[in-house]
Every structure is written in structure tokens, then in C-alpha cells.
């Protein structure tokens, strides 16, 4: 039930709603719950008609790189 998906913001209407591409499907989501301003091209995680968080691109890359590094370093 807490299922939520990342998707790219395609456009924003009146600052409160955005059209998001979630795996090729376009959906309209409300932006009222986001603390940070967003613009087209940003990725947001959406749940039950609302964007609930902006994907942190830097953290995403950093954590994948870190994981690769850890696995590489101490591989048996």
C-alpha cells in the first residue's frame, strides 16, 4: 500500500500540479507536500496522487558508487 515510484517531471501547472513520467506512463501528481521547489527534469517519488519527495541525484550516485567500491575492495 505504501508503494511509490520515481518519475521525471515533464511539466508543471500553476505550481501545484505536475505531469510526471513514471515508467512511460504519464500521471498528474499534486506538489502540495513537497518542501523544495521542483522543475521539469527533476525526479520525484509519487504516492497516491502526490509527489512525496524529490530524488536526491547526488545521494543516488554516491550510494551506488560506494556500494560498488565496497564490493570491489573486499571481494574474497
Amino acid at each position, binding site marked *: 500500500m505504501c508503494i*511509490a515510484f520515481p518519475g521525471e517531471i515533464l511539466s508543471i501547472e500553476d505550481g501545484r500540479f505536475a505531469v510526471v513520467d513514471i515508467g512511460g506512463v504519464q500521471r498528474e501528481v499534486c506538489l502540495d507536500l513537497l518542501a523544495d521547489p521542483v522543475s521539469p527534469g527533476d525526479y520525484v517519488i509519487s504516492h497516491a496522487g502526490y509527489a512525496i519527495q524529490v530524488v536526491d541525484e547526488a545521494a543516488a550516485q554516491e550510494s551506488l558508487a560506494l556500494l560498488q567500491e565496497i564490493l570491489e575492495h573486499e*571481494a574474497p
Partner: protein
Amino acid sequence: MKHLEEYRDPELAGRLLKRIAATAALIDRPVTIMEVCGSHTQAIGRSGIRKLLPPAIRLISGPGCPVCVTAAADVDRALWLAGRQGAVFATFGDMLRVPGTGGENLQRLRAAGADVRVVASALDCVALAEAEQGREVVFMGIGFETTAPTVAAALRRARERKIANLSLFSVHKVVPPALRLLIDDPGVSIDGFLCPGHVSIMLGSAAYGFLPAAGKAAVITGFEPVDVLEGVLLLLEQLAEGRPAVEIQYRRAVRPEGNPRAMAVMGEVFAAGDAQWRGLGPIPASGLFLRREYEAFDAAKRFAIPEFAGQENPGCSCGVVLRGLIDPAECPLFRRVCTPANPIGPCMVSSEGSCAARYRYG
């Protein structure tokens, strides 16, 4: 799909599994990990992770499926609300087949002529109320911290638009009090928790501080196979090193401070109160109820809902399944009597329930 595909890489998963085996060997005792969230249960079932982990690691499913923990009495109240003459009743699809006392459910009530609608968002209910002026629209709100802020925001919108024919029947619940209950239960022994990723987008990590304080490992984890495996690995490392903490594996989505704006909206509309959980009983301050300022939208105040004692099917073991005390397959009704087509308990109804996941994925 960006931010998803990367976490489905089988090669990366294979290497993580090797590291998990090596780390489990360091711990040298059986380890029990609870995946709190129903979406984790489903993801773990689908990817077969449970069977790929070393035998010393037991993954058990927790109470994190909102449908599964809805008390029979609340389903009875919903059925009463939906059955009133002229009523429009809306809720999320998962709720339709959850049995109340005596096995009745919303789907059957709908087949018998009640106007029961399935919505994907509370915002749909605002639109529905506007379209059905002159009729009372009741929305049954169900879900944890992930969902409750969306419902709160929709109610704010309804108030803004002065919608008078919409009300909310809230069975929303919050997660931390249920985890507290589990770690205080001497019958339950859990070493670490895969904490729910999407609940934590809202909550942040500080809300779980009581877990390491009680010696439990905790990792806020995402939902793709690589996420889950990394979550398990981080838990094992905490246990191997004897340094329980709250770590965030799902860093692309979860910030330590959570989403303060969403939590503020939730707090403006809802206040915590005692709530009944199926299988766990009453838990103090674990339910979300409308504040006085939103009383006009409160179905519990608007309608004289009769008292329902609520009786769960005595043969159903959901109560012990939800506490991780037995595996779903140990329930005498599992697969023989209780199936997704004929669910006896809510753990078999929702695709996220532990019984349904075990039925589908073994």
C-alpha cells in the same frame, strides 16, 4: 527506468549475496530480521531473496501492511457506512475484500447494490464529492505515514474549496508504536529491522531511535532487490560489530529529517489516538484521527455509527503471523481453506500480506 533499473542488477545482487554470507559467518549465530513493510514482503517474495539468504538468516514479515492490521470492527463500521441508503463510499482497492465480522466485505456489499468506489488518491474523492453534489461521499482513509499526509492534503484542499458533502472515516495508523510493542514483547525476538522506505520518506530516521537504544539494528531500506540485499548486509554489519544504529540505505529518497512539510500537513489535520490493530490489539497513540478543526469532515462525528465489538475469524492466525511468531504456512487454514480467491484473514487479502506473498511465491 531511471532510479529503478540500477537496483535490479543481478550481478550486483550476486556479489551482495556473497558478502552477506561472509558477514553472516562472522556473527556465528542465527539472526532474525523483520521486514516491517508489506511492500518489502512483496518485493522479497517476488525476487526469491528469502531462499537465497544463508540458512542462519531468517527474514520474517512484520505488521507493515495497513490492510492486514485493520481491525474487524473497523471493517464492520465501514460496511455500515457503505450500506446506508444513498451513500457513496470510496476507498483504496486493497480494502474491498477485507473480511469484517462474519466474513462480509465491501466487494460483496457493492455486488448487492451499494455504491462503493475504488480510488487511487484522496484527491479523487474531492473530485467525486464535487461531481456528486447533494450526496454524502465517505472516504475510508487507510495507510501509514506514507499515505496519511496525502489524505490530509486532500482534506485541506476540500476545505479550501468549501466542499460540504465529503467526510473521512480514518483508520490511518502510524508505524513506530507498533515496533515498540514488538520489541517489548518477550515472546518476540528480533535482531534487526528493515525499516520501511516510503514511510521513512515522511518520518525520517530519528523516529526509529528507540530501536538501537534497545540493542536492535535498523536500516531504512528501498524496495528493489539490490536495495533489500544491501539493507540486509548493513544490518548484519551492525550486528557483527555490535553497534546498532539507524542507517539509511535508501538514500536517494530518504533524508534524515524526512519530509517535514508533509509531516506538518499531517499534524495539522490529524492527531494521534489509541487504535486497535488486528493481531496486535490496542496500541496507544498509534491511530490518526481528525482534529477538532476538521471535525466537519469526520465521518465518525457526522454519522451515528453503532458500536461494533468486532470478531475476527477464530481460525485465522494473522495475529501471530503479524508478530512474526509463526510462518504463514504454519497456519492450519493456509492454502487448504484460505487462499487469495477465498481469503479468511486480511493477511491473505492484500497482495502485500505475508500469507498472500507466501501463497504466491512460496
